C-alpha cells in the first residue's frame, strides 16, 4: 500500500515534468536568438510593429480600453496617410488583465515573440513599473499614456530608466497648479483634501497640493480618503462638511469623482471643488449632472471643447470612428502613438528599439493633442497645464499655467 502511494507521489512529479518537457519540445523549436540581445529590428519587413501592453480586462479595464481606442485611431490615420516611409504600422495589443504579473508576461511576449520596436506601457503606474526592467533588457522603449508616478521613469535612487517614457504629466506639477489656484485665485484659506488612496496618481497630487497650500499660508482642515470603485462617499463628505472648508481638492478619476461631486452637492456642500486631468471624461458629466458641476475646476492637458483645430480634428475623427466624445485617456493613447511615430520618423538607418529610444529622449516641441511638449532629462514631458471651469456641463477656459 505504502509502495503504491510512493509511486503516486513520484508519478505526479513525473507527469508534471513530462508535460513540461512536452511543452519544451513544442516551443523549443520556434525560438530564435533573442535571449536578451539587442531588441527587435524588423526594418527588413514591410511593417513596423508597435505593441501595446494594456489593461483590457479586469479592474481598470476602462482606462486601458480607452487608451487602446485612442491608439488604434492614431494607427489607422497614420496608415491611411501612407505609414512611415511607405511601411505600414502593425498594432499589437495584449491584455494584461489589470494585473502586474500579467503585465510582465505581456511585455515579454511583445518584446520577444512579437518583436515590436516600441510599445505602449500599461495605464497604471504600478503595472508600468513592472515592465520597466523588461523594456530595458530587450531594448524596447515603452511609453505610458497615463502612468503618472515619478518612479516609472526615475528610480528612488535617482537613476533614470532609459527605456521608459510617458505622455502624461507627473503628479507634482498639477498639484502645485491647483494649490496656487485655490489660494491665489479663489482666496481660499481653509481647504480639504479628499483623495483616492488606491492611486499613486491621486496621492502624489494630494501631497504636492498640500505642500504648496501650506507654503502659501493656507490650512488643510480635513483630509479624507476613498478607494477606487467605491460608490458611497457620504460619510466622508459629511465629515468634511463638518469642518467647513472653503475649497475641496478631489484628485481622482472620473468614475468616482462624478459621484463624489453629486453626493457633495446633495449634502449641501456648495464651495468650489477642484481636481486634475483624471476628471476629464464625458462620463463625469453623465454621473454628476450639469448642476452639480457648476463651481468646479480642473487642471488638464487640454479640453475637448478647445477650439484649437488640432484638437477639434481629433475630436471629430474620434467621434466618426467610435460615435462618442473622447476623454483624456483616449487623447493620451492617441498622442502616445504619435509621439512614438514622430521618433521613428527621425531615426536614421535601421529602425531598432535603441534608435527609437534615442529619438524619443530628444523630442522637442512636438505638437500633440494634449499639448506641445518637450521631453526633459527625466523622460517626463514638459508641457503647460490649463485651468478650466465647468459651466453648465461645459469646460470653459480659465487660465494657462506654464511649468
Amino acid at each position, binding site marked *: 500500500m505504502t*509502495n503504491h*502511494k510512493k509511486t503516486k507521489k*513520484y508519478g505526479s512529479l513525473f507527469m*508534471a*515534468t513530462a508535460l513540461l518537457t512536452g511543452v519544451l519540445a513544442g*516551443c523549443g523549436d520556434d525560438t530564435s536568438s533573442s535571449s536578451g540581445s539587442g531588441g527587435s529590428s524588423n526594418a527588413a519587413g514591410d511593417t513596423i510593429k508597435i505593441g501595446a501592453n494594456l489593461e483590457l480586462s479586469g479592474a481598470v479595464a476602462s482606462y486601458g480600453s480607452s487608451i487602446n481606442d485612442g491608439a488604434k485611431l492614431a494607427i489607422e490615420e497614420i496608415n491611411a496617410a501612407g505609414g512611415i516611409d511607405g511601411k505600414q504600422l502593425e498594432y499589437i495589443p495584449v491584455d494584461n488583465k489589470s*494585473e502586474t504579473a*500579467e503585465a510582465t508576461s505581456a511585455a515579454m511576449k511583445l518584446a520577444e515573440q512579437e518583436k515590436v520596436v516600441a510599445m505602449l506601457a500599461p495605464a497604471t503606474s504600478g503595472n508600468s513599473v513592472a515592465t520597466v526592467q523588461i523594456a530595458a533588457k530587450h531594448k524596447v522603449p515603452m511609453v505610458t499614456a497615463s502612468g503618472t*508616478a515619478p518612479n516609472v521613469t526615475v528610480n528612488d535612487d535617482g537613476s533614470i530608466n532609459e527605456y521608459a517614457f510617458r505622455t502624461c504629466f507627473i503628479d507634482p506639477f498639477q498639484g502645485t497648479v491647483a494649490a496656487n489656484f485655490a489660494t491665489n485665485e479663489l482666496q481660499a484659506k481653509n481647504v480639504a483634501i479628499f483623495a483616492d*488612496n488606491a492611486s499613486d496618481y491621486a496621492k502624489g497630487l494630494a501631497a504636492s497640493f498640500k505642500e504648496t497650500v501650506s507654503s502659501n499660508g493656507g490650512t488643510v482642515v480635513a483630509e479624507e480618503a476613498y478607494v477606487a470603485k467605491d460608490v458611497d462617499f457620504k460619510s466622508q463628505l459629511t465629515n468634511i462638511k463638518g469642518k467647513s472648508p472653503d475649497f475641496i481638492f478631489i484628485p481622482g478619476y472620473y468614475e468616482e469623482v462624478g459621484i463624489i461631486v453629486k453626493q457633495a452637492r446633495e449634502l449641501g456642500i456648495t464651495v468650489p471643488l477642484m481636481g486634475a486631468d483624471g476628471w476629464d471624461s464625458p462620463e463625469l458629466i453623465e454621473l454628476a449632472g450639469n448642476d452639480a458641476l457648476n463651481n468646479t475646476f480642473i487642471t488638464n492637458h487640454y479640453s475637448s471643447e478647445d477650439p484649437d483645430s488640432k484638437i477639434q480634428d481629433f475630436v471629430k475623427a474620434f467621434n466618426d470612428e467610435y460615435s462618442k466624445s473622447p476623454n483624456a485617456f483616449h487623447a493620451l493613447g492617441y498622442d502616445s502613438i504619435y509621439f512614438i511615430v514622430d521618433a521613428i520618423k527621425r531615426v536614421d538607418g535601421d529602425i531598432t528599439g535603441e534608435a527609437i529610444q534615442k529619438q524619443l529622449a530628444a523630442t522637442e516641441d512636438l505638437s500633440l493633442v494634449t499639448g506641445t511638449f518637450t521631453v526633459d532629462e527625466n523622460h517626463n514631458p514638459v508641457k503647460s497645464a490649463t485651468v478650466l471651469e465647468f459651466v453648465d456641463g461645459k469646460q470653459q477656459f480659465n487660465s494657462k499655467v506654464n511649468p
Partner: protein
Amino acid sequence: MKKSKIFWGYAVLALVIYAVVQLLISNGSIQFYYQNMFIAMCINIILAVSLHVIIGVTGQFSIGHAGFLAVGAYISAICTMKFDMPFITAILIGALVAALAGLLVGIPSLRLKGDYLAIATLGFAEIIRIVFVNTDYVGGAAGLQVAHQSTWTYAFFATFITILVISNFTNSRHGRACISIREDEIAADAMGINTTYYKVVAFAIGSFFAGVAGAIYAHNYYIIQPTAFGFLKSFDILIFVVLGGLGSLSGSVIAAVLLTFVSTYLQDFPETRMIIYSLILILVMLYRPTGLLGSKEITAYFKIGKKGGTRV
C-alpha cells in the same frame, strides 16, 4: 528495498528533467516568455498542492488561500528589499510567517464547518489584503518593487520539495488522521484523534507552502500589489484543486499545469478567455463533480499512457 529503489528512480528522473530545462535556459534556447510560464506553472503547482492539503486531505473548505500567498510574498519581499537578506532566507521567513498566519486563521475557524468556514476564510484573506493596502511601509495600494530573483532552479526545487513533503505527510500517520477528519469528523473524534490539532496542522502546512509560493511569486514579477491577492486569486487556486479532484495530489498538479496553459494561450483573446474559463468550470462541475481524477492518484491510470490518463 523496493520502495527506496522506486524513490531513487523517480528522484533521478526529476533531476534529469530539471537539468535538461536548465541547460536549455542557459544556452538561450527558451525565451523569457516561456521561462516565465514554467515558473508560473511551478508557483501554481505549489499553490494547488498546498491548498490540496487543507481541502483535499483534511476536508477543510478554505477559499482564502490568496491571503497566505500575500503574506509570503510581502514578508519575503521585505526581507530582500528592506533588510538585504539572501533569497533562501527570505523564502523561509516568508513561509514561516505565512504558516503563522495559517495558525491565526485556523484556530478561530475550528468551530466552523462547510460553507461558513469557506466564507470565514474568504473574510480572513480579504482582511489580510486590506491590511497590506493600508500599510505604507509596503507601498500601500501602489505596491512594492521587488528585485527579480526567482529562477527555474528555485522554482523547480521548491515545487519538488513541496510535493515531497506533502506527499509524505499524506501517507504518514498524521496524513491518515487528516483523511479521517475529512471522511467523518465526529467518528474521527470518537476514535480518539485530536481533530483540533490536525486541523490546525493542516492549515499551518498549507499556508507554509503557500508562503513559499508567495516568495517565488514576489521575486518573479518585479512588483507586487495587494490587488493581485484578492478573492479572484483564491478562486483560481481553488479551481486547480477542485478540477484535479479533491483528494488527489497528482490531480491538483495536472490541473494546475493545464489551467496555466489555458490561461497563457488564451491571453490573446481577453474577453473570451474568462468566459471559456468559467464555462470549463461549470461544465466540469456539472458533469464530473469529483474532478478529473476523483480521489485517486495518477498512477491508478498508469496503464492508459503518458499524457495524464484523464478521462471525462
